[in-house]
């Protein structure tokens, strides 16, 4: 390893990035850390509280409930979007004019601002004038996302699937296009059926893009705020109050900066931890030669 030490000067090249990251991530994060150990009543007067806010958050039923909702939401979203994304990517054409048409259609939901997505679905799902809401009610199902928790959950999940499955599709499609034709040809000659080609050629080759897709979708859905906030505002009651919505309620609604800061850090550590677990699991047995 010693012979590598000769390029120390290269570190200076990294300096701008280090400065940038320091100012937009590390320093704000440290402010939050600062808040999480103190109590303030304004006027820049702080009192040391130690780990009190952390204990309070970790023991609060409200936090447990929000975390529980968050885990269920993310679990459902991943369980639907990943297989659905792979399936759509497999069905997309590989050549001809259909390719660009499909790619544009797939990219559309990703281009819409998040609060607009929330507003669109809010109107779309209204039981009296919205196409979706009226349609479901016309089928004889009692549906009202502003009053029934189940309807609200259904709408939020459907909205997220509509919004984000494309990301998985685009990643998988890129992965599929990168598989050399010889693999399919060899598969045909070896007598492999469609399922075996998927299982032994396509899925293994998609492993890396799927890792990225799962990590991105996990992080984004775990931090989801704007769309459900616009759609349901966390209601009815607290039915769709996910972690970030709850956090904003504490921080800005109640102005409890200390507990909110403690909760932010706990939230951050949970995401970091779960990402690490996902990554380790998916990269297990990966080539290291």
């Amino acid at each position, binding site marked *: 390893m010693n012979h590598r030490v000769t390029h120390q000067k290269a570190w200076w090249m990294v300096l701008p990035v280090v400065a940038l990251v320091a100012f937009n991530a590390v320093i704000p994060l440290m402010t939050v850390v600062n808040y999480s150990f103190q109590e303030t009543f304004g006027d820049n007067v702080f009192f040391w509280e130690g780990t009190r806010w952390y204990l309070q958050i970790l023991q609060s039923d409200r936090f447990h409930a929000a975390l529980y909702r968050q885990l269920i939401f993310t679990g459902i979203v991943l369980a639907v979007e990943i297989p659905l994304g792979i399936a759509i990517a497999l069905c997309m054409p590989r050549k001809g004019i259909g390719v660009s048409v499909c790619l544009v259609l797939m990219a559309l939901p990703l281009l819409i601002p998040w609060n607009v997505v929330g507003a669109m679905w809010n109107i779309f799902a209204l039981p009296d004038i919205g196409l979706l809401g009226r349609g479901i009610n016309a089928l004889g199902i009692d549906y009202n996302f502003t009053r029934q928790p189940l309807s609200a959950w259904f709408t939020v999940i459907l909205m997220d699937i509509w919004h984000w499955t494309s990301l998985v599709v685009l990643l998988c499609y890129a992965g599929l296009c990168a598989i050399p034709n*010889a693999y399919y*040809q*060899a598969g045909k*000659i070896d*007598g492999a059926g469609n399922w075996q080609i998927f299982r032994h050629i396509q899925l293994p*080759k998609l492993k890396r893009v799927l890792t990225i897709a799962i990590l991105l979708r996990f992080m984004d859905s775990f931090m989801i705020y704007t769309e459900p906030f616009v759609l349901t505002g966390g209601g009815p009651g607290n039915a769709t109050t996910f972690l970030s919505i709850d956090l904003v309620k504490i921080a800005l609604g109640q102005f409890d900066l200390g507990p909110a800061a403690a909760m932010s850090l706990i939230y951050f550590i949970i995401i970091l931890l779960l990402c690490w677990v996902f990554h380790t699991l998916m990269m297990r047995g990966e080539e290291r030669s």
Partner: protein
Amino acid sequence: MAQIVLENLTHSYVPNPQADEDWALKGIDLVWEDGGSYALLGPSGCGKSTLLNIISGLLSPTGGRILFDGEDVSALSPVGRNIAQIFQFPVVYDTMTVFQNLAFPLRNRGLDESAVEARVREVADMLELGPTLERRAHRLGADGKQKISLGRGLVRSDVNVIMLDEPLTVIDPHLKWQLRSKLKQLHQRFGFTMIYVTHDQTEALTLADRIVLLHQGRVVQSGSPEALFERPEHTFVGHFIGSPGMNRFPAAIRDNALHIGRQQIPVDADLSAIIPAVERGATLEVGVRPEHIRLCADGFPVEVRKVSDVGRYRIVEAQLHGIAFKIYLPESARLPAPVAGARAAFERARTHVYVDGWLHPPAAS
């Protein structure tokens, strides 16, 4: 194992082929004898891989038929044709072990597990893959992976033909020799029909009994390596086979004798038969390999421009009436001194006449 016959095979990647260049294959008639070892040779883009993929059934031809032992298989899938194909880049199933890779084609065909086990072990031993059987296939090096690809072809004992599409491209040079001799050894032991695609003439000459040379979608010559060397049926064959390639001289017929510039060249070919073609504007050329030109006192005067030492022999670059050509000079031979008075002679029996690129008289095949 089977005899493979190609009948007037044509292929185009364009929906409505019109012009000559729209066609990747322009009418191929060939017979691949059972148990033969063939090299399909040609420059990049000549249609080698297209032809291979048509034989294996991965591609269906625009026109023509493919017969295996007299039976038309043109409409059959690769599985139905029971062939094996090895590609330029090794294809292994990453998530499987070496054993599972080799067993894959057999299991897909519903062979019972004890037979699979026995056959896989046998093939693994032949290919020296035995010790790695339980390892993940993707952990092997390029040569190991290519052996797995080959093994997946060999496990099926009844394959009609094994086709290899430039299989040694990504293999390190010192391992290339090993794999090549392994392949030759396997062919001699099992007698499968083998079609080996390459653009490397050394590889073709060392591996195959017969060479099929493809150029711009046509077979320009098919025969033994000696035939391609001694009697190239097309100037392209002369140019492509041999290093350096055959010398080509524009020629003319005057007074019933062949001339290069002002120099008369004695040839065996019957000139009277080609006079009508030449009068219609056909190009007339003389082809002689550098190996078939001697520097000698009784030849015609040539102008020596450059002598390069290529190790065990020398290449003399000379000119005859302004036309550059090369002479092969064995280590034992001496350059005439002074060089200014050099004279050379063509070996009469190996001086060939080409009309519009094709040998005259055409070989009786």
